[in-house]
């Protein structure tokens, strides 16, 4: 019976963890995407007034 309770807890924890892992992958992707977009914006910035707003700043 004790094994049973442990087993149930384990499967709940696994499901919760899988949700966390997905969220972690999502933020990694978002970070990559942001970095690439920033570097693109900055490469093009010197020619423009854009450089007056710091990277990471609001639009």
């Amino acid at each position: 019976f004790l094994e049973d309770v442990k087993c149930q807890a384990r499967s709940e924890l696994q499901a919760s963890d899988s949700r966390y892992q997905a969220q972690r992958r999502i933020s990694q992707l978002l970070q990559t995407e942001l970095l690439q977009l920033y570097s693109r914006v900055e490469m093009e910035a010197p020619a423009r007034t854009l450089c007056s707003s710091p990277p990471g700043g609001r639009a």
Partner: protein
Amino acid sequence: MADDPQRNFRSAYYEKVGFRGVEEKKSLEILLKDNPLDLEKLSTFSQRFPLPSMYRIHVWKVLLGILPPHSDSHALVGGYRKEQYQDILEALEVMRYINSSTPSTHIYLRMFQLESQILPRCSETSAPDEENEDFLSVSRAMEEIVDDPVDCYWLIKCFVNQFHTKFGDSIPHLPKSLEHYLSQEEPRLLNHLKNSGALAQLPYSLWFRRCFAGCLPESSLQRVWDKVISGSCKILVFVSGDPAQLQDHLDGHQPAGRHRQVSVQ
């Protein structure tokens, strides 16, 4: 006469009109009342009988680990699954991998790629390759069977993952098994296929990789997948070796078996 002619008459009648599963359905219902569910018994049931359609999705979810054996955890875990689905969907939208006109099967592919850490850069997304096409076929077939998109995604993901983990090593050997099976069961057919060069032309590698998705009518496919999900890939060989399936294909009926049921017990 038998002791209970009424009952025997009924059973025989049910069988004749296709309700062979009345008794089976009852025994499945008993299994589904267990808490925790006995995965081994459910697998055995699913190996032996086609799942009644009203319980199919639930049993698949349990066998694939989308829902845990403990029924009283189903609501909690089901909620986690839904959140995970929504989180991924939302992120893909924001990153512009998908939009309102993206076909759902392509959405499932991107979601699966995100979770498997093989999502290409948005700008580098190209036409789906062979492996993607296999995934898309399975998705299209699953979508025919499952209405709820959350269930559908989870079933596709876990089905594909389980199929590769469990049978990935066996798939390349299935064509040999098919030949062996035919040599035992249908030696004349095998000879004919070999001599006419037709054997080499059969797309069985595709059938195996896609688990017959897109190659069998839905009702037969469900029964094949019952067996695959509950742990056997031998069924793929038997279905491929079914003379009617082969004949259909050689006759140029595509997808094979569209016109009749493959007998999957």
